């Protein structure tokens, strides 16, 4: 009963629902019960032949289609797949790992002007202005948004993979170039 109820809530919600939010909506039930219901639903989805899975994203839970079906779903949605240019991805990565970060810091790390890219990421709501840094000139500082976590399937910022160790990268030698960037979805 509770499992079905939680499933129906997650189904109709147009954004991820946190355990807190579900708990508030279903005040008649204990948090622990709700938690096990969510776990049971996630298990069910992992069962053979289901088309969706329950993912933990941006601090909440959300049903998402299995990635194996992406090609077919795009036929239905008739949408161009979202694509990110290498410069947006580099900038996003720096903002994600270094936040709160200033434009000057981003530009030092990338070695190129990044104002345009940053503006574009602000427009797309993947990056937000956190405030101003308390140093001379009071530059704006940037961080990532909830949309960023939703877009990149991140449970929270702590679940970003750790940056690889410098030594490992230095050792990786020339074969790093051989991996084509998965920037397109073919």
């Amino acid at each position: 009963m509770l499992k079905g109820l939680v499933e129906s809530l997650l189904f109709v919600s147009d954004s991820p629902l946190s355990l807190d939010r579900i708990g508030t909506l279903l005040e008649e039930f204990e948090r622990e019960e709700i938690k096990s219901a969510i776990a049971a639903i996630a298990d069910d989805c992992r069962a053979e032949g289901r088309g969706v899975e329950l993912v933990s994203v941006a601090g909440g839970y959300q049903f998402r289609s299995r990635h194996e079906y992406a090609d077919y779903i795009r036929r239905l949605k008739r949408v161009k797949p979202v694509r990110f240019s290498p410069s947006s991805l580099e900038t996003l990565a720096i903002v994600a790992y270094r936040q709160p970060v200033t434009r000057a810091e981003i530009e030092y790390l990338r070695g190129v002007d990044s104002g345009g890219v940053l503006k574009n990421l602000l427009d797309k709501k993947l990056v937000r202005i956190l405030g101003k840094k308390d140093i001379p000139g009071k530059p704006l500082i940037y961080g990532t948004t909830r949309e960023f976590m939703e877009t990149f399937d991140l449970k929270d910022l702590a679940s970003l993979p750790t940056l690889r160790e410098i030594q490992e990268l230095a050792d990786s030698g020339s074969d790093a170039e051989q991996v084509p960037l998965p920037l397109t979805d073919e």
Partner: protein
Amino acid sequence: MTATDSVQNQLFPDESSIACLVRTKAFEGPLDLLLHLIRKNEVDIYNIPIAEITRQYLDYLDVMRELNLDIAGEFLVMASTLIQIKSQMLLPTPVDSGGEDESGEDPRAELVRRLLEYEKYRQAAIDLASRNVLDRDVFARNFPSPELEEVVPEETFAEIEVFDLVDAFRRILAKAPKESFHEVGSENISIADRIADILDFLQGKEMVTFEDLFLGNLTREFIVATFLAILELCRLKMIKLTQVESYGNIWIRSAVLPGDVQTAELPIDITYA
């Protein structure tokens, strides 16, 4: 030539065919180009043959110029950095210090640090792109469900960002009558801050002294903003200044009496009554 061959050629252009490289691969910036050259030459990043890499780097810029491509300023700055490092390495050095400058550090060290740091974030960018990206690899029901169509929601706070606010203001100014343009700088804003603070401070008090308003961090900016805020409030007749004797305390009180602002048109709680 098969499709696979052509991809191979895009990724691994001949040593000699930098022109081909330019046509097939744009670089994100000088660091990206340098990393590419280091990889292509299969050299140790901690021991970059600076003369050879500099030569190839400059060749690349030449080809770009020949192709009439815009060369971003950053590429030129890096070119001069490389040349500088190269000349430092050519300078005669004290015995046994092999290529180190007077501080004892290899002239290439700073560049190596930047390259390694950049490489980390470039890898992180690739990792991001290889995740299950929403609306590319996976899809959610991020649209209103028909079940909820007939339910009238209560209005609550929406999630908007500071950026939305600035952006909205930019749009207004873009289409507003021309004479309303003037730069909204931090100066105006800190005066607005002080106006709000002063009104808050006066709330529930009969009178305060002029000096009371200047307590806190006495930076020049703060004093100027406070003073201009007081002038603005006087101009708006929202505060009254009185001085009992010359050189005596200046007293400030709120000029708005309780209930004064209450209007039938806007039945709300008046904060400054």
